[in-house]
């Protein structure tokens, strides 16, 4: 029971809390619980078979691999973008800053068809790549590009506030003690960014794992080759294999919750680091 409610003069705790719990249960908790209820109907052996069939395992590998590469690309370029946005003053900086959120704002289906058209063999970017003998659309490379697009804001947006809050005196101290600029950056600045950097990476990775709209157009969707897990779930649903679809969904759901939990731990670690300084 509320500890402070007894002495609080503020009204509305019961009403607000009651509505919150009711709405949360109706919209989120009850619907999500049906997932586990339904997948349990398979029984352990059936469940195991549904989530480890070769086609499903191939989709895990593709989704996991492409998401990891996309998050790594965003980890590298996101650091550069965040650095430039926080540290340098140049024309168009505010525009660039606002633009970083574009993948959050753009509906995924629009991103999907735009990227597919761009990287198709006759597209603006696909044609030059085709001359080099690289096929982007309808291959794992295309999937990775789409996942890079949708994960782009995460690393930048988690790094930016941390970079802004870094005390310049620390760098001045390092420099006045004789460190070169490279030493200061790699030994003083970057280590302080590590928790936020990993958090941004993990957020981009988690988002990529569940992504559907931006990938489904560019993926090609060939079973065993370019079929992501989200699409496989939809395929099973369309074949009325509800139990099979829910089993795979339960696996991905548990995986993303574990990731989310790890991210929360990371964030409290990075908050502790921040307050210790």
């Amino acid at each position: 029971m509320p500890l402070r409610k007894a002495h609080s003069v503020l009204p509305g705790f019961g009403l607000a809390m009651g509505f919150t719990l009711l709405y949360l249960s109706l919209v989120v908790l009850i619907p999500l619980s049906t997932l586990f209820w339904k997948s349990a109907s398979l029984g352990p052996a059936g469940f195991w078979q549904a989530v480890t069939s070769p086609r499903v395992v191939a989709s895990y590998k593709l989704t996991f691999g492409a998401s990891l590469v996309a998050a790594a690309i965003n980890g590298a370029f996101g650091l550069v973008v965040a650095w430039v946005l926080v540290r340098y003053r140049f024309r168009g900086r505010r525009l660039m800053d606002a633009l970083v959120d574009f993948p959050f704002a753009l509906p995924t289906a629009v991103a999907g068809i735009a990227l597919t058209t761009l990287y198709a063999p006759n597209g603006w970017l696909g044609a030059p790549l085709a001359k080099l003998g690289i096929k982007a659309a309808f291959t794992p490379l295309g999937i990775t590009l789409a996942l890079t697009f949708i994960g782009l804001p995460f690393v930048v947006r988690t790094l930016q506030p941390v970079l802004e809050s870094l005390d310049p005196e620390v760098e001045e101290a390092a420099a006045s003690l004789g460190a070169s600029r490279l030493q200061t950056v790699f030994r003083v600045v970057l280590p302080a960014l590590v928790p936020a950097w990993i958090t941004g990476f993990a957020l981009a990775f988690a988002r990529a794992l569940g992504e559907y709209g931006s990938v489904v157009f560019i993926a090609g969707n060939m079973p065993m080759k370019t079929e992501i897990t989200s699409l496989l779930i939809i395929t099973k649903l369309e074949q009325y294999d509800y139990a099979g679809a829910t089993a795979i969904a339960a696996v991905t759901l548990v995986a993303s919750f574990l990731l989310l939990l790890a991210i929360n731990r990371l964030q409290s670690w990075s908050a502790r680091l921040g307050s210790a300084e």
Partner: protein
Amino acid sequence: MAATAPPLRSRPQTAARATSEPLPVKVLLTGTATGFLVLFLLVPLAAVFQQAFEKGAAAYFAALREPMALSALKLTLLTAGVAVPLNLLFGVAAAWAIAKFDFPGKNALITLIDLPFGVSPVISGMVFILLFGRQGVLGPWAEALGLKVVFAVPGLILATVFVTFPFVARELIPLMQAEGTEEEEAARLLGASGGQMFWRITLPNIKWGLLYGVILCNARAMGEFGAVSVVSGHIRGKTNTLPLHVEILYNEYNFQAAFAVASLLAFLALVTLVAKAAVEWRSEEANVH
């Protein structure tokens, strides 16, 4: 004497060099960042509009005026029109309870509110099929009442409410926690009613955060694809929102029309970014003064 001059002049230079990068490095990093963003953000955006206008302005507007496009637009406005106010109401209630009172299990509650962000869109749609579909838990019950949820408008709205669930709450909770409770307590002790306190103290304090959450919530509600795709059944003119209409046109190889409708959504995204930047700017202003 001339020999003493250079150290004096070089001093500020070394200081600048010590806490910043040399100019070529700056240019290189800025160029890399710009190149990455242009390649991944601006080029796709340009492609949308180029494809949309490929057959001229007449074809562009014809694709937007087509009855199926108009009904998709109406349905998109309807789903967002229901989902955003519901989640706004929830966000305010949840933030009030969590930020202004102490109770056990608060962190667990915050984690539960964030749950929909961790669920893949496809799964978000699927749970409503499991719940209300013909083989679903509540399916027979809904059918007996003559209520069609899955492959119908209520399903689209439910899926949209689910995926946009945390937006307002997660903006407001940290904001109201930072505000503390003193102002509201003072209002109450001075005799304000609950309503007066809320409208005159709480709401003005959180208005920018509230608006920010609503903008993000609305953008996602209008643009959601995966979750509504699963529950819609793709019935033209009946259960197609704008993003689903884009998909259908694209899969029919009607690329120009698909991109014309997509350009509307891209424009919405740009408006969202501008509104978001404006709110950020205004709330910074409000904090300074």
